[in-house]
C-alpha cells in the first residue's frame, strides 16, 4: 500500500509518496533543482552535492542532498536558501577549477552566475567529474561490473581493474552513452588487424573502448551482414537471459529486427 505524506517545498504544500526523494517531488512540481551525478535510471548516489536543499524538521535546520533525502511528513524544504546556495555555488566553483573545459560544468557554473574559475585556485584540466554514472550504469543497468572507482581522495578515479584491459567489459557502450562529459571514447573499426614487418593479419571488425583498454570482436548481423555489436555482449546476454535464447536470435541488428 502506498502511504502519502505532506511536505512543503518552497512554500508549496505538496502530497508525495512516502519513500520518494525530495528531488523527485520537487521536479514533479516543476521546481528546478540542478543536478550532476543524478540520473533517473540509476539509484540515488548523492555525491556531487549540487542538488542540496535546506530542510527543516522540527526545530532542526540542515542542508541535505535532495536526490537522496526521502519525503517525510511535515518536512519543510527550501530549494534556494542562502545556505543551500552557498554549498551549490561553492561546489560549482570547485568543479570549475578542476574541470574548466567540461561543458556540463561550465553550464552549471554559468547558471549559478560563475563564469570564470576563482583566481585563487590553481586551475586543473581534468575531464572526468567523478559522478560515477558509468560505474553505476555498468553495475546497475548492465550488470557487468567491469569498471570501478579506484584510489582514494584527491587521486580518486574511475578505472578498469588495475588500470589494465577491463576483462569483464562486454563492449556494450552504456558508459559511453551515459557519461555527461564525453570523456569515455569508443570506436568501431571495420577491419582491425595486426601489422608486423612484412605482413598484416586481419582480425575482422573490432570495437575499441580506449578508456578501459578493451578491443573486442564484433559480430555481423545475420541478415544484413554488417557488424553491430560485440561477441562478448551477445554471450553475456545469453548467459543472463532467464529463458534459453538461441544465438541466432541475438545475432540480428536492431535495424533488421525492425
Amino acid at each position, binding site marked *: 500500500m502506498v502511504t502519502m505524506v505532506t511536505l512543503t517545498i518552497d512554500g508549496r504544500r505538496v502530497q508525495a509518496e512516502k519513500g520518494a526523494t525530495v528531488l523527485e517531488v520537487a521536479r514533479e512540481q516543476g521546481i528546478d533543482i540542478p543536478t550532476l551525478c543524478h540520473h533517473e535510471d540509476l539509484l540515488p548516489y*548523492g*555525491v556531487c*552535492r549540487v542538488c542540496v536543499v535546506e530542510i527543516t524538521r522540527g526545530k532542526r535546520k540542515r542542508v541535505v542532498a535532495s536526490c537522496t*533525502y526521502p519525503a517525510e511528513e511535515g518536512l519543510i524544504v527550501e530549494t534556494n536558501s542562502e545556505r543551500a546556495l552557498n*554549498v551549490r555555488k561553492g*561546489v560549482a566553483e570547485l568543479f570549475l577549477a578542476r574541470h574548466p573545459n567540461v561543458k556540463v560544468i561550465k553550464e552549471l557554473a554559468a547558471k549559478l552566475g560563475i563564469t570564470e574559475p576563482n583566481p*585563487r585556485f590553481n586551475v586543473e584540466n581534468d575531464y572526468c567529474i567523478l559522478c560515477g554514472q558509468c560505474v553505476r550504469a555498468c553495475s546497475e543497468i548492465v550488470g557487468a561490473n567491469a569498471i570501478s572507482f579506484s584510489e582514494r*581522495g584527491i587521486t580518486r578515479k574511475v578505472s578498469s581493474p588495475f588500470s589494465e584491459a577491463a576483462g569483464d567489459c562486454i563492449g556494450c557502450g552504456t558508459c559511453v552513452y551515459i557519461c555527461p562529459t564525453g570523456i569515455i571514447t569508443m570506436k568501431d573499426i571495420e577491419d582491425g588487424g595486426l601489422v608486423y614487418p612484412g605482413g598484416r593479419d586481419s582480425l575482422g571488425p573490432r570495437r575499441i573502448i580506449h578508456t578501459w583498454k578493451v578491443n573486442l570482436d564484433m559480430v555481423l548481423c545475420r541478415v544484413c551482414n554488417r557488424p553491430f555489436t560485440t561477441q562478448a555482449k551477445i554471450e553475456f546476454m545469453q548467459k543472463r537471459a532467464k529463458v534459453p535464447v538461441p544465438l541466432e536470435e541475438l545475432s540480428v541488428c536492431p535495424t533488421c529486427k525492425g
Partner: protein
Amino acid sequence: MKKLASAEHLESLRKEINKKRDPNLPCITICGGTGCQAYGCQRVVEGFKKEIEKQKLENRVTVRLTGCHGFCERGPLVVIHPKGTFYQQVKVEDIPEIVDKTILKGELVERLLFEDQAAKKKMLTEEEIPFYKKQMRLIFGNNGRIDPCSIEDYIALGGYAALSKALFSMKPEEIIGEVKKSGLRGRGGGGFPAGTKWESCRRAEENPKYLICNADEGDPGAYMDRSLLEGNPHSVLEGMIIGAFAIGSHDGYIYVRNEYPLAVKNATVAIEQAEQYGLLGKNIIGSGFDFSIKINRGGGAFVCGESSALFASIEGRIGEPRDKYIHATDKGLWDKPTTLNNVETWANVPLIVTRGAEWYSRIGTEGSKGTKIFSLVGKINNTGLVEVPMGITFREIIYEIGGGIPKNRTFKAVQTGGPSGGCLPEKFLDLPIDFDALTDAGSMMGSGGMIVMDDRTCMVDVARYFLAFLEEESCGKCTPCREGLKKMRAILEAICGGRGRQGDIELLERLSQVLVDGAICGLGNTAPNPVLTTIKYFRDEYEAHINQKRCPGGVCKALIKYSIDPEKCKACGACLKACTVEAVTGERKQPHVIDAKKCIKCGACYEACKFDAVVVS
C-alpha cells in the same frame, strides 16, 4: 574447561580462582601497552622471569605482563604488589637489584622511583603521583592489574558479574532503561546517548539485528581505544554481550584496524576464552541467550571509522560513507538494524550494570556523565593516557595531571577531538570539559585526543597540518570534501609560505561552510574545524602571515630568520656543532654568527643553545 552453565557456576569459579591467589604474596606487574612495548618491556618481563627462576621464587612471586598503565612518558613501568611500589624507566640491568631489594628485603630502589619536580619528592606508589592522583580510573584502572590474555585475571576481579546480573535478573528493557538513566553518551565522537540508540535498535522491526564495536581509532596522537582493547579486552566483550542481550542481537563484530596487531591478538584470544567458558556463543552461562562476536580487521582508512563507511567495509565493499538520512538503528549493516558504539562506550556498560545508573550519573556534568579517557600528548611533561571525570578543567589536566609544559614555556592552545577537532586558546583553560562545552567552544570531544601546544607553535601551520591529514584521508566520494580540502590546504600552504593574499581568510571561511553543510559524512562536515577555530581564536596570526609576512610562532620557514644575539652568546660552540650545513661560524671567545644564505632553518642551533642566544625572528 567445562562451559559455565549458571550464575552460581561463575561465582564458584571466581572463588576458586581467588582461593589460589594469595593477595599478600608479591606480584610484579609490568606494563605491556604499546608505548612500553616500544621501550622494550618484553625484555624486562623475560628478565624478571629469569631472575625469579634463578632465585627459586616461582612459587612465591608472580610476574604479570599487563595492559597499559597510561603513564607512557616514563615507561617501561613496573608496579610491585601488594604494596604497589611504582618503578619507572626500568631497564633489564635493574632487575637483579629490584628482586634482591624490593622482593626479598622489602627495601626500595630509590633511583627508579618517580620524582615529583614541583614537590622535589620521591613518590612510592601510583596513588601518590600527581599524574594518577587527579584521575578517576574506572574504565582504565584494571588495565594495570590483569594479564589481558587471561580471562581468569578478569574473572578474579569481578569480571562477567555484570553480564550474569543482566542475563538473570534484568529484562532487556530494564538494561536499556538503566543505560538511558545513566546518561552514557557515545565515546566515539558524536556523543549520542547510548541508551536511546539501543532503544531505537531494539524497537526496529526487522531482524537480524547487528551489534558492532568500533575500534577503528585513527586520530593522530590518540590511542585510548587501542590501549583498552589491548589491555582489558574482556571488559569490552562483556559490555557488548550485555548490549546484545538488551537490543536482541545475536551477531556482533569488532571492527579493529589491522595496524593494531596487539589489539587484534588480545581481542581474538579474549573471544576464544570467553567461548570456551560459555560466556560467548550458544546459551550464554545457561541463560538461553546466544551471541557471537567476529573480528573484522580494517585496512587503515581513517574514513572507515565513520559508521556507514564501516558498514560498507564489513560488507566487503569500498569503505565509503553514504547519506545517512535513515538511521543505522533502522538500516545499518546489510540494511538491518545495527547498534554501533566504540570501544570505550562498551567498556562503560558493565560498570553501569554492576553499580547502577544512580551511582554512574553522579559522576560528571549535567549533560555528560561518567569519565573520559584522553590521550594527553604534545608539549606536555607527562605524556600518557588519562581517565578523568567529565567536568574537569583543561587546567587540571594540563598542569596537575600533565605536569605543565616542558621548558617552562607558555601555553598557547589545546587541540581536542582529533584532526577534525578544534584549537582552543588560554581563555578556555578553566572550561569544565564535556561534550556540549567543547562543541559550544567550536571544538569537539571526538574520541578524546588532547594535544597541548606551546608558544612556539604556529596556529596557521597547525591548521595546515590537520587539513593535509584530512585531505589525505578523505575518501574522495563527495565534491566538497575532495575538492574543497585540496583548495583549502593549498591556500594554507600559500599563507605559510609567505604567499598569502588579502581575502584568503574570508575565502577559507566560505569554503569551510561548503564542507560543513555540504559534505556527505561527519568527517567532511567537521574537517574545517581546525581552520575555523584557529581563525576564530588566532586571527591575528593569520593576519601577521598575510599582511606582515611574519610567523609569530616562529615556525613557518619561509617567514622566519635565525640569528644569534651577540650579548647572550657565550661562544660555547654548541650551535656550530649542531649545524649540519655549516651556516654557523665563529671563533673561540667570539660571538657566533649565522649566515642567512646557508641557513636551512632546521632549528638545530636553537635547540642546542643553552643560553637562549639563538633568536627566531
